[in-house]
């Protein structure tokens, strides 16, 4: 039978991440988000303790753990009121792709910075005409001598201002372009301050400290050492980072769900409207109980997905299901928690409503709810592809 005992090390990791996060807390996070600040200090504290790079290889300063441990870091920071979007980007997707497919030299150059938390690497795939459909990516990288020259537009790229470098998905051959062929995509590491690269913030209502950008690549030149893997193999490499990204996203959602439910339960135990705690009314307690069930189920699937990924088993189905379930469960929990708080639920000081944007975002990104349903319909149920 499956063993559901949480290993002592995992429990200790949870506790330690929660304690580091508690030094900063929900108020720190909320204020940084509201004032357009960053959460650098928290990131650094987590980096110093080895949590930001928990899934990266030990020989480059990482923890040598897996995505299961990274999910714990994502969940506990979120449960402490500090959901960190860039864990999903830098540690999960960029970190996993580099450690699986980067050359020795690339790993030695960039992984130590990611592992220690001193540097982040963000990830740029989405374009105005290529979101759910990455086959339509039109940013090109053309050869010029030994170099590659990138031209095109990306948007909704998170944290470009916080990272010295990013992983960019670009088309290295235009032949298959009209047919939307994905065998021509390649991955490059590009400096965020490279000449010819222009960035414009996109105002969003996510309520998170991380900012999103539209990027224009106007003949941005990179050396041959910046190509990750082989040219034309980009989409396959990206796929190896997608499951970790989904798992990390799911863990952020369940973490926020736990945060919201803990606050709501505390409030419902204390708040009296008719001479007894409102938690005594089933109209109050049942939605919270139902939300707790949703969050726990999503946590189970998230753990399963992480286990499968870490054991090199196919993890696509479980990762997709976990992300889907966790985003819905997190939103359900937050909504129930806000309701229980009455008017206070909308008050900044009660520190709930500002988290809605992050959960709502995670229903759309990194992969939308609909695309997950498409995947499950097709792969789990064997139904015809609908698009």
């Amino acid at each position: 039978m499956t063993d559901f005992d949480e290993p002592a090390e995992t429990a200790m990791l949870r506790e330690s991440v929660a304690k580091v996060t508690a030094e900063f807390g929900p108020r720190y996070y909320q204020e940084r988000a509201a004032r357009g600040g960053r959460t650098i200090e928290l990131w650094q504290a987590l980096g110093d303790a080895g949590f930001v790079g928990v899934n990266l290889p030990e020989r480059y300063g990482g923890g040598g753990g897996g995505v299961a441990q990274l999910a714990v870091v994502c969940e506990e920071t979120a449960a402490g009121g500090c959901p960190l979007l860039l864990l999903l980007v830098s540690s999960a997707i960029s970190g996993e792709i580099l450690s699986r497919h980067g050359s020795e030299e690339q790993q030695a150059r960039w992984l130590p910075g990611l592992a220690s938390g001193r540097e982040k690497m963000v990830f740029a795939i989405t374009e105005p005409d290529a979101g759910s459909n990455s086959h339509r990516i039109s940013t090109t990288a053309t050869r010029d001598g030994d170099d590659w020259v990138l031209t095109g537009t990306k948007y909704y790229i998170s944290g470009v201002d916080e990272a010295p470098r990013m992983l960019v998905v670009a088309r290295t051959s235009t032949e298959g372009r009209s047919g939307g062929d994905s065998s021509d995509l390649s991955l490059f590491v590009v400096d965020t301050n490279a000449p010819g690269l222009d960035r414009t913030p996109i105002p969003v209502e996510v309520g998170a400290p991380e900012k999103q950008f539209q990027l224009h690549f106007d003949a941005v030149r990179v050396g041959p050492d910046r190509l990750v893997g082989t040219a034309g193999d980009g989409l396959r490499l990206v796929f190896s980072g997608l499951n970790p990204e989904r798992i990390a996203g799911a863990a952020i959602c369940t973490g926020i769900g736990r945060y919201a439910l803990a606050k709501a339960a505390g409030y419902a135990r204390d708040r009296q409207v008719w001479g007894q705690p409102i938690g005594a009314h089933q109209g109050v307690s049942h939605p919270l109980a139902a939300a707790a069930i949703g969050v726990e189920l999503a946590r189970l699937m998230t753990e399963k997905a992480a286990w499968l990924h870490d054991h090199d088993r196919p993890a696509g189905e479980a990762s997709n299901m976990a992300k889907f379930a966790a985003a819905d469960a997190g939103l359900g929990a937050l909504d129930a928690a806000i309701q229980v708080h009455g008017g206070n639920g909308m008050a900044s000081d009660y520190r709930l409503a500002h988290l809605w944007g992050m959960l709502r975002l995670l229903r759309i990104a990194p992969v939308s709810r609909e695309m997950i349903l498409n995947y499950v319909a097709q792969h789990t149920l064997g139904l015809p592809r609908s698009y």
Partner: protein
Amino acid sequence: MHVVVCAKQIPDPANPGRLSPDTHTLVREGKLVLDDSDAYGVELGLQLAEATGGEVTLVSMAPHDETSGLRTALAMGAARAILVSDDALAGSDALSTAKVLAAAVRRAEPDLVLTATESTDGYTGTVPVQLAELLGMPSVSFAKRLAVKDGVVHADRQTEAGYDEVEVPLPAVVSVTAGVVEPRYPSFKGIMAAKNKPIERLGLSDLGIDPATVGLAGARQEVVSVVAAEARDAGEIVVDEGDAHERIVAFLEQLKVI
């Protein structure tokens, strides 16, 4: 320098505690955690050991071979632990505890022994000095700052009026206050390393202690009854009408706090 830190494992203070109805002693069942007040000693021990190329050994007495709290301290960086666990130790009073700890500490041959000033679940605050007496070592209690130089401990000892500067030669027993240093949280590497660190498990016979002299059998102290603490009166709420600072100062002066 080889530092021994006495580390108590206690029921999680986040959960409400329970007293045994017949002995009035704390029920210690299930998972125990490292007493937060011992985290300061562990941290200080680690800093002193790291500065001198030494190591920290933990010494703990706990029921049922419990090691969860020790793992936390090992994850912080302690090198090894000695755990004394024996059914005959149930109901031990402070002196019995000190006897057991002294026997275990002796085996480790430390240069310095650190303890907290008192535990969070028992807080008699008498074990550190009893331990020093049994070990025949000088002791400093309530150290809020501590440095070791040329075999001498220099400590600032907290008093009601301020602090005394105290010096004692090593080996010594020092109890440290919360805040003497800022305890680190276990890092991921520390957590993984803790898995393979040795924990020596000892019973009373290993320490040559007669079971009749410790535990409930040997206790010289008995809790005869327990009463609920009196509920405190609601405090006075000072509403600021421009003079709040003056009223607060007056209140603190009346308490002789300032």
